């Protein structure tokens, strides 16, 4: 599983960080960082939740 964020859409609101802090982190510079681009399978359902809750529909999972 690969996590991809469309950084043209992302507005750094940190919603994804609230759901999967293991993968998404908004830092003090207000940019979103992906901590693991290929996260383990057990995080899939949480990442899917982040995909649904991202207000900008900026996150995608590529299998």
């Amino acid at each position, binding site marked *: 599983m690969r996590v991809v964020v469309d950084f043209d859409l992302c*507005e750094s*609101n*940190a*919603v994804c*960080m609230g759901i999967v802090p293991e993968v998404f982190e*908004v830092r003090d510079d*207000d940019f979103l960082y992906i901590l693991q681009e290929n996260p383990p399978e057990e995080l899939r359902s949480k990442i899917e939740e982040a995909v*649904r*809750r991202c*207000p900008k529909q900026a996150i995608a999972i590529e299998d």
Partner: protein
Amino acid sequence: MDGRIVVAGASLAGLNAAETLRREGFTGELVVVDADPATPYDKPPLSKQVLAGTWEPEKIVLPAARPDAGLDLTWRLGQRAVGLDVAGRRLRLEGGDELAFDGLVIASGAAPRHLPGTDGIGGVHVLRTLADSLAIRGAVDAGASDVVVIGAGFIGAEAAATCRERGCTVTILEAAPVPFERSLGPRIGPLVADLHRDHGVDVRLGVRIDGLDSDPGRDGNPVTGVRLEGGEVVAADLVIVGIGVAPGVGWLEGAAGITLDNGVVTDATLLAAPGIVAAGDVARWPSARYGELLRIEHWENAIQMGEHAGRTLAAHLAGDADAALPYDPVPWFWSDMYDRKIQLAGRSGPDHDVEVVIGATEERRFVALYGRAGRVEGVLGWNRPRHVMQLRSLVDTPTPWSDGIEQARALA
């Protein structure tokens, strides 16, 4: 699980319920009804990017309505539900069609209040649908330059900011003497008005509207001004009415077996009647967290509540009512104006204590905690997404007020 489920309202709550029902293994027919003929879309951009002209409508189509969604939904768009027979399990549509169902999701959202006495006057808009947003955008494209926003709520304030950024002269008229007091309290609320003033918006508080002036001699009887009590007229060629919304329950009036009280009242699991769930802006449920009936008009709630209602309905249809769980989230809201992002986890209001814990209000980049009864109830951020997210847990699990302040300050 098969049979037929009808979803009344093809927006955020309804479509998330539909997606969840498929995920939960519902293989029967899923019929989605909506009065709005447009391909179902997301609403927050309507006062932001769509109004600004930077996003086209294709960009806001909801995931469940995309061609590749694969949810096998039967669409009935442009068709309004006008009646419900709870015992007979039938939904009546405008035009006379009836849909029998085994399960129903009520997700008819909320509809804007209109200003009385404005019928027949051109250039007066509410902002709720894609058509509304495109109409306002079109008016600005066509040269409207004197915009008056009636009501300082978040949607009106966002529309004011977007119109201002497009170069219009903008006036906000608000009846309350303190802006955003009900939502953000007397300390933080006025900062929103200051933000607008700094961008050149004329924010008038404590004003009462007497009526609209228009020019019947011109095509469409366009608005020319907003008359205030006392006689002053504020020039206007575009009026945006943002005086709040009411739950979309007109079609349920008189439906025996459904309780209406400022929305569709459900039980803690979101069941409104046997085989009928409700979710989103229309639904009011008993929150154990807050010990009262809540109806929330926020984007994230519509998603979460739609999903939850879908799970509850799936449990009932599978004959396993005990699997339906109580719904009890922490509310989450954001609003964008100019270059500021306001985010709120939990609750904030005029009766809360307020403590600015990170940054300073003068910088317009800060975090404030809202507390009541010795506990943290809300975390509000202005351009502080990281800290709001880190402090959200202070609201998720009840935290004493002084501990919350200490923990928050430690992050600064």
